[in-house]
């Protein structure tokens, strides 16, 4: 059911209205799913829409066998003004929404929006944020975890993505939705796949399937015949991250290695001169690892980040029977 959660008049036009969708009875397990924190992250928006249709179909009996057991909320769009422009942020205030939580009840527009999302999700048990890689980068599908204790890693496993990755603590993390959720007692999971501005149907399928499995595993959704499946996930702590930098400035041509394990010394791409096309440098993996992020935009400075490897020596497996 679509519900209005915020209605603010704009100075010169129609009001800004934010919505959430909500299903299921109160009192059981509860899940909030948020997408659209930035105005250019399409995968999350599409997954939110597809998931809403699925849950509407479950509610109306079109998806036979399924039953909604807990409370599920979806917040498809948060940074409404950024979505109007297709930019990650609203140019009017240059404010990254995911550096503005918990916001304030009465304040600037972005702060009010953030506070509204916090108020509407605070009672949930679980929170899922749908994301992509940062600007100019593509992420292989993975789950980011804050304070990844064993319980959280087990929950994450049911999301069905092959990789779990700890989010490193930093001073600015406290202003993010995930950290705020963590501090008020939700289990937060950030699902990242793909890149900004691009809709990736296969990743969308993967995320949709994973979230439905998560809901079934954790008592939010049931099916009268099929059981949910427990899945395996390789988990990497924050010390596993190995950034790969260029030595030269130029145009970066990546190899198709994102989402694969590469050996030490494997070629990740090369840097060519913008004006003459000559190869300036081959970029190699400094260690064996899983390529979780790869540069998309070709223009790179000297010492520019072109990839992130997750080192295998810090990996721990979470098996279905673990």
């Amino acid at each position, binding site marked *: 059911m679509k519900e209005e959660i915020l209605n*603010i008049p704009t100075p*010169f036009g129609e009001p800004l209205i934010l919505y959430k969708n909500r299903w299921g009875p109160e009192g059981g397990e509860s899940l909030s799913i948020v997408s659209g924190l930035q105005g250019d992250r399409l995968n999350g928006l599409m997954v939110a829409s597809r998931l809403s249709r699925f849950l509407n179909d479950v509610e109306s009996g079109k998806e036979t066998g399924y039953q909604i057991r807990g409370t599920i909320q979806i917040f498809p769009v948060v940074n409404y003004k950024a979505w109007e422009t297709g930019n990650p942020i609203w140019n009017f205030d*240059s404010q990254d929404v995911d550096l503005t939580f918990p916001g304030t009840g009465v*304040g600037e527009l972005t702060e009010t929006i953030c506070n509204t999302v916090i108020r509407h999700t605070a009672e949930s048990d679980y929170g899922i944020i749908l994301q992509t890689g940062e600007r100019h980068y593509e992420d292989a599908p993975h789950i980011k975890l804050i304070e990844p204790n064993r319980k959280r890693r087990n929950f994450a496993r049911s999301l069905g993505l092959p990789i779990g990755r700890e989010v490193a603590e930093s*001073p600015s993390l406290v202003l993010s939705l995930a950290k705020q959720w963590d501090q008020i007692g939700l289990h937060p999971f950030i699902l990242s796949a793909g890149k900004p501005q691009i809709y990736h149907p296969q990743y969308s399928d993967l995320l949709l399937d994973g979230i439905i499995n998560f809901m079934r595993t954790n008592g939010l959704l049931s099916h009268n015949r099929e059981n949910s499946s427990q899945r395996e996930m390789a988990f990497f702590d924050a010390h596993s991250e190995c950034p790969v930098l260029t030595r030269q*400035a130029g145009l970066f041509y990546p190899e198709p290695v994102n989402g694969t394990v590469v050996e030490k010394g494997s070629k990740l791409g090369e840097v060519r001169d913008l004006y003459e096309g000559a190869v300036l440098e081959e970029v190699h993996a400094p260690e064996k690892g899983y390529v979780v992020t790869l540069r998309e935009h070709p223009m790179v*400075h000297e010492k*520019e*980040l072109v990839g992130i490897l997750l080192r295998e020596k810090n990996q721990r497996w979470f098996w279905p029977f673990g």
Partner: protein
Amino acid sequence: MNTQTLLSRASPLGAPLNIVKQTFPAHQGKPVQRVSFVSGLHGDEFEGLYLCHRLIQALRQIQETQPEVFKGEVHIIPAANPPALNQGTRLWPFYGSDMNRMMGPHPGASIPVQMSREIFNHLKECSDLVVDIHASNLHLKELPQIRIIEEFSEELLPLALQTHTDIVWIHPMAGVFESTLGYNLNKLNIPTLVIETGTGLRIEPGFVDRLFHGMIRLLHHQGILASLPSDIPSAPTPQVVYPREVAQTSAKHSGLFVSQASLGQRVGEDEIIGQVLDPVRGVVLEEVTAPGNGLLFTLREQPAVHSGTLLARVALDRKPKS
């Protein structure tokens, strides 16, 4: 004066990305103290660049005519974020990153993260005192002021008083400060004064004049300059305001804010300082009144406002102690 390229990255397009520092060393022997000035972390704030220009010009002249006056060392980084300054944007343009939200321990390896980290580490190594100069954003105009987080006030207030800004505002800590240059240097016991003045993308020469005089006085007070140049006028002591001594007023309606007050004027409680208008229907939505008796030190510049938008701050007159 020694000119040093503090940080440099080759660019794919040709011209390298350089951050430049000017240094005025002590005339003889070990410096009594090392002070660093930094401005332009946000690329839409030009007041600090002009202030740095004034300081470099004056210190160079002193060095040429009275080198023996230099007992300490002065470092000046006038343009800490050249890509953003060249675009006139608050954020590092290619990544949309806020350099003043990446200070202290911050993960990642993008170029803005690397630059922020290197500036931070450099200031940490070469400074006993830092002055971080900011203008306001594009929306507000501020009287020259120094802002101090409460926990650092004991050490910073005596220094701030030397600068003769209009206001020294001691305010509570908030999450947003945790990743700023000022907070992180102060946490490392490197006293750091944060200046806010004027408005984004503009220069108020009168404000910068006062700050320039204040900074020269500060250098003299710290013993870096053995004598005070004769052309530095005296100035009144700043008004020090504590958290409960700042009152603010916000818009109750969305519309067009038209100010009827001037920054720096004394206002009385409930005095009308502006209106919020509906220009489409031609009606006055709201008379905006001062929230208390005192000095109007913040005033909205950008007229488009949503309900909740900050319009003005007043440094309240202290009630006489009975």
